């Protein structure tokens, strides 16, 4: 948080900077595939404010995955700048980026990506290990996060003993454990049935209501409909950027859904 207070002290526009969690300016990304050069992002500029809930949409090959990887500090832009929390991360080293991923970003993946044969509790504790958190503190924090996603009673379950929805909830708890600035969810409902999808979206909406900034990548428009803002990618550029100030509540949608039959 030291960097933030520095920024506040130095910048005259501290108020607006504080609101801008993510500021991406004219980002390009090329890949060299043998002889050919793939231009995955062709000048993307976007500002995401603190507390927003953004859905990133687009067909495969539109550049949304590349954008997501850059946003998640798993990849670096070929040109352009990326400021996260007022830190210029595009110039960071691999090691520094690992630290950013660890403390500032919470990942939720389509395939859950939990460690097999490892309990829910230990899966959630994993990021705290790399943050060198005190083991006792880490265990307490992990339990807190599991309770938050409604799995406080399943801490010693292995991923194989949990349903898909429960596994994704463990993954969300893991993403929250180091108190990140942003939650990045990459097709979080892609492997789930429609009812469980809405359940998971409910949890994500709830987290957003508590103030967490969310960026969600999806190609399903009904999943994206729960977000407050939709950004659509096409051919490496942002095609649409629309705000939806009053999205439907996933909790209410769930109530109106018929019960599962089996």
């Amino acid at each position, binding site marked *: 948080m030291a960097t933030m207070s520095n920024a506040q002290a130095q910048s005259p526009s501290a108020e607006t900077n504080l609101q801008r969690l993510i500021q991406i300016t004219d980002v390009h990304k090329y890949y060299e595939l043998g002889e050919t050069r793939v231009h995955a992002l062709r000048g993307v500029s976007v500002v995401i404010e603190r507390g927003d809930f953004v859905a990133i949409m687009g067909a495969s090959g539109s550049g949304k995955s590349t954008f997501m990887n850059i946003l*998640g500090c798993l990849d670096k832009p070929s040109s352009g700048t990326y400021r996260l929390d007022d830190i210029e991360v595009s110039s960071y080293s691999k*090691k520094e980026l*690992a630290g950013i991923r*660890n403390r500032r970003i919470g990942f939720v993946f389509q395939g859950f*990506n939990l460690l097999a044969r490892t309990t829910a509790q230990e899966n959630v504790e994993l990021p705290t290990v*790399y943050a060198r958190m005190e083991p006792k503190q880490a265990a307490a924090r992990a339990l807190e996060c599991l309770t938050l996603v409604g799995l406080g009673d399943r801490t010693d379950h292995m991923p194989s003993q949990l349903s898909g929805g429960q596994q994704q909830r463990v993954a969300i708890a893991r993403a929250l454990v180091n108190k990140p600035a942003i939650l990045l969810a990459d097709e979080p409902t892609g492997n789930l049935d429609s009812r469980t999808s809405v359940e998971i979206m409910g949890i994500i909406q709830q987290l957003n209501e508590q103030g967490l900034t969310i960026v969600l990548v999806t190609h399903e428009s009904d999943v994206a409909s729960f977000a407050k803002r939709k950004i659509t990618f096409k051919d490496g550029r942002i095609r649409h950027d629309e705000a939806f100030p009053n999205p439907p509540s996933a909790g209410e949608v769930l109530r109106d859904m018929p019960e599962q039959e089996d």
Partner: protein
Amino acid sequence: MGTLPTIRVALRALARNKMRSILTMLGIIIGVAAVIAMVGVGQGAQQQVQSQIAAMGSNMLFVSAGSVTRGGMRMGFGATKTLVYEDMTAILRECPSVAAAAPGSRSTGSVIFGNDNWSTQVIGTEPQYLDVRSWPMASGAMFTQNDVDTSSNVAVIGETVRKNLFGATDPVGQTIRFKNLPFKVTGVLDAKGQSAAMGDDQDDVVMIPISTLLKKITGESWLRFIVVSATSKDTSYAAQKQIEGLLRDRHRIRVGSDDDFQVRNLADMAALADQAGSIMTTLLAAVASVSLLVGGIGIMNIMLVSVTERTREIGIRMALGATEADVQKQFLIEAVVISLTGGIIGILLGVGASRLITQTLGWAILISPLAIVVAVVFSAAVGIFFGFYPAQKAARLDPIEALRYE
């Protein structure tokens, strides 16, 4: 990631693939066990040789009839007929550094008792022989100087001969036969074991008076050897020089000609045996090290498989904040845990195997703490060396690619 949690993660990863981990360790286990046991055998043999030589008395000298060249052919030691009984009395009389001496000649053949026979070596000598060799009696008594003077048919037998001819019967007072002559057994020699220099069984022997052997059996008038003891350990070289000078004089050997006898000093033999022993130890250790190397390659192989299998796990860890150094450390520690666990099991197995060898084959084995420390350090080094490449491969993975890996 701290070292302790990393070790815990490594142990758990290994416990998940128990069979594979054990098979991987097997190379190191066998390697370390082999090094421990082989070096133990080598050093044990060396120490045994040294203690035997020390027990024989390092002031003993062995004068043997020398080789001679006849018609261009070098005959073996003992081929000359120039070493005679008078040489021995002269040595006793004229060499101030000599304390005692005994003459000797030998014959081989079957010794018979009742229905049993045993092929052995018969040495003709005098009672002082036992003093020079510091060789006590187990039962009965050595024949006397009087027996030598009268060429009596008496004998003392070694432990091996007693075991094979008499079994449970008390040999003292019994009569054995050698070359159709009856010999009354007056005593049994204490067991002496293998000879330090040659490795032959020193207890496989029958001793009779020299006069009896020469007159009644071989018909020779010359000696095959003389055993001499110097007045002390420090004078053994002086004694050697005195004997060599005296015998060259007595045998009228011109300056520049070869001796027709040979004087061997036990201190020289000890040094020689020691050298042979350390060569053997080095050789055994080298052979055993090869299996450690093979074990190390096995670890590298399995670690590479493990990195490929766990590509996704590596991707997850990296996405959640593991640095390259964290991932490298994790796999390196895993490799070291395999090799070190293997090393410790190997040490236990090696010590166990050594005990077994000692019990079944009767070889003396010396397990030095140094060998154990070296084995531990070496197996850890094998883990680091052969784990480095796979660990680096894991650390260099691109997290995006790794997360996509199926």
